[in-house]
C-alpha cells in the first residue's frame, strides 16, 4: 500500500539488533534487540509522542528515523524515498526534510563555533536552498522565530547561553531548512521545570505556524500528553499500544500503559490517599534475552500460560493494543 497523501513518514516493521561481544573471543554473545519490529505512520503536521522507560529502544528508533543508524531490517519511507536506501542527491534531499533535536543542549552544539556559524552550517551543506547573500537574514529570522534576539546573540558561543536558550538554538538549527518532520529525542528533559514549559510552548507554536510534524520521544508522560496528538507506548523494542492522546491516557488498554500512567506522580496532594497505584515488580528485563511470548508478561499481573508462548500482535485500528487480555476501554 503506498503511503497516502497526508502521511509524511511511514515506518514499516523497523528492526535494529546490536551484536554483543561474548565472553569467548569469536563466539557471538547474542544480540540486543533494541528495536524489534516497530511500525507507524506520521501524518503531516501532527505530533506523535513515543513513551517508554530507559532501554526500551526509543532513542535508537529516533536515530533510525533520521538515518543516523542503519536498521537491521524494515524501512522508513518518506514520500517515494526509503531513508536507508537513498544515496547522493536523494539522500541530501531527505536530510533536509527530516531533522532532529537532541536531549542535551550542552553537547549537541559545537562549543567552538558562534551561533552564526552553527546556524549557517545547514546552508553550507545544502547551498542550493538559499542564495548566499540572503542567509544571514534567514538565520536572524530563525532566531526571532525561536524567541532569541539576533542582535544580541548571533556572535556568542554556546557556553554563553542557558540550557533553555541552547535548546532554542538547537530548534532553530533543525528548522533552518524547512523540514517536514522533526524528531525530538527528549528535548526538554535536561531543562528546569520553569524553562521546560517555554520550550514546549515554542514547539507547539512552531507547529501551528509552520505545519511541521513531530515525533516527540520522551520518558515524561505528562509532557507527552500535553504535546501529542497520538501516542505510542514502547516496551523492550516493541510498540505495545498506540492511540489518540485522550483515549490512551484516559482509557489505557495495555496493562503496561496502565501501570506506567498510574506510577506518574500527580501534583495534587488532596487526591493522594485515594489514588490507586499499580506497583510493577522489578525492572524491565534485558533486551538481550527478552521473555518469550509477550515481553511484558514477567511484570504483568494478569499473565497466563498463553502469554508465555504466543506473542500478541499489535492489532490495527485507531487504538490498537498488543495484549491477549486488553483492559476494557
Amino acid at each position: 500500500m503506498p503511503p497516502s497523501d497526508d502521511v509524511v513518514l511511514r515506518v514499516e516493521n523497523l528492526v535494529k539488533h546490536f551484536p554483543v561481544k561474548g565472553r569467548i573471543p569469536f563466539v557471538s554473545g547474542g544480540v540486543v534487540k533494541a528495536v524489534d519490529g516497530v511500525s507507524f505512520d506520521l501524518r503531516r503536521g501532527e505530533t506523535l509522542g513515543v513513551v517508554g522507560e530507559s532501554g526500551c529502544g526509543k532513542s535508537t528508533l529516533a536515530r533510525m528515523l533520521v538515518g543516523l543508524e542503519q536498521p537491521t531490517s524494515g524501512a522508513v519511507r518518506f514520500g517515494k524515498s526509503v531513508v536507508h536506501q537513498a544515496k547522493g542527491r536523494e539522500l541530501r534531499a531527505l536530510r533536509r526534510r527530516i531533522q532532529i533535536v537532541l536531549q542535551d543542549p550542552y553537547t549537541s552544539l559545537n562549543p567552538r563555533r558562534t551561533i552564526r556559524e552553527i546556524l549557517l552550517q545547514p546552508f553550507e551543506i545544502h547551498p542550493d536552498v538559499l542564495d548566499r547573500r540572503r542567509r544571514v537574514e534567514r538565520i536572524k529570522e530563525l532566531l526571532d522565530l525561536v524567541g532569541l534576539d539576533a542582535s544580541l546573540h548571533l556572535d556568542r558561543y554556546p557556553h554563553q547561553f542557558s540550557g533553555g536558550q541552547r535548546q532554542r538554538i538547537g530548534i532553530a538549527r533543525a528548522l533552518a531548512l524547512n523540514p517536514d518532520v522533526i524528531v525530538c529525542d527528549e528535548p526538554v528533559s535536561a531543562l528546569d521545570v520553569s524553562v521546560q514549559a517555554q520550550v514546549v510552548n515554542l514547539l507547539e507554536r512552531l507547529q501551528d505556524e509552520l505545519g511541521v510534524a513531530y515525533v516527540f520521544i520522551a520518558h515524561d508522560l505528562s509532557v507527552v500528553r500535553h504535546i501529542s496528538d497520538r501516542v505510542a507506548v514502547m516496551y523492550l523494542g516493541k510498540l505495545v499500544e498506540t492511540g489518540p492522546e485522550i483515549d490512551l491516557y484516559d482509557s489505557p488498554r495495555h496493562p503496561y500503559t496502565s501501570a506506567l500512567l498510574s506510577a506518574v506522580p500527580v501534583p495534587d496532594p488532596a487526591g493522594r490517599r485515594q489514588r490507586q497505584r499499580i506497583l510493577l515488580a522489578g525492572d524491565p528485563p534485558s533486551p538481550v534475552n527478552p521473555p518469550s511470548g509477550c515481553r511484558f508478561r514477567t511484570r504483568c499481573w494478569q499473565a497466563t500460560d498463553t502469554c508465555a508462548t504466543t506473542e500478541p500482535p499489535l492489532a490495527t485500528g485507531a487504538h490498537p493494543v498488543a495484549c491477549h487480555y486488553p483492559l476494557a476501554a
Partner: protein
Amino acid sequence: MSLLEIDDLRVAFPSPNGPVNAVNGVSLEVDSGRTLAILGESGSGKSVTAQAVMGILDVPPATVSGSVRLQGRELLNLPRKQRERISGEEIGMVFQDAMAALNPVFTIGHQIMEVLRVRRGMSRADARRRAIELVDRVRIPAARDRLRDYPHQFSGGMRQRIMIALAISLEPDLLIADEPTTALDVTVQAQVMELLAEIQRDSGMGLLLITHDLGVVAEVADEVAVMYAGRIVERGTVEQIFAGPAHPYTEGLLASMPRVDRRDEQLYAIPGAPPNPARLPTGCPFHLRCPRATDECLVTLPPLHALPADRASACHHHEEVLGATQR
C-alpha cells in the same frame, strides 16, 4: 523542639569574581515522623542546604554560618571528629547517583557490614545477619546471595535500594534524600518512593527530601519549603501550597507543569531562566521573571512574611497572590 532546626543558614563559595552566595539565610524545621520537601530548580541552593546539614561541604573553601541543631545540639561548631560521628550515626543520606555513592570495588555486603562493624562494633557474623535483614528490608530478592554482588551488578533501582539500606543501617533519626528518584524510570521511582515512605512510617524518622519534582512533592511531603536563589520563598503544608500558593514563583511553577491526568490547552511559562547565584538581581531575586513585580520589588528584598495558618511567603504582594490563587 523539632528534630532538626536550621536557623539563618548561609553558605558561600569563593570564586575569582567574588563570593557566590549559594544559601542566603535559610531557616526551617523537620519533625520526627514528618517529611519536609525542599523544592527548587538548579542553582536554588537546595542541595547545598542539605550538604551543610550533612556536614559534607569542604570548609574551607566554603564558608558556612548560622545554626543547624539536631535534637537541640548545635552541629556547626562541633569539632570535626564529633561532627562526623553524628553525621554518620544520626543522619542517613541517600543521593541521586547511587553508582557514584557506592564503592565499585567492594561487594555491597562488605560495604554494609563495614558500617556496622566500625560504628556498632559488631562481630562479623552479627554484621552479616544484620546486613541480610537490611537488604531484605529494602525488598531486594535473595538478600543472602546478593551480598556477594558488586554495585555494577544491580539495576539503577536496586542500587538506590542498597543506598537506602546503608542509610538506615544505623537507625538514624533523620534521613536526608537528595533527588533520590531523579535518575530512575517512573515505574521504579514509584517503587522507591513507596519504600522510603514505608520505612519512614515504621521507624518514625524525620525525612528531608530535596527535589525539583512537583509531582514527587505532592505524593510524599507533609511540609514544603520552596527555594529560589538561595532563599526560602514560600513555606507551608503540602495542601496549602498546592491548593493556593502564596508566592508568584510557586504559582508559576504549578501553572507550568503539564499533568498526566488531564490536558491543558496552554502551559503557563515563567519567562527567563533561574538567576546565576554569582550575579543575583537587586531587590527580590524573582522580580525579573515575575508578572506581579512592582517598583518596590526592584529595590527591596522581601522578608519571609509569616501568614495565617502557619505558612510564610517572601513576596511583597503575598496578599494579592493568595487572593488570586485561593478558590
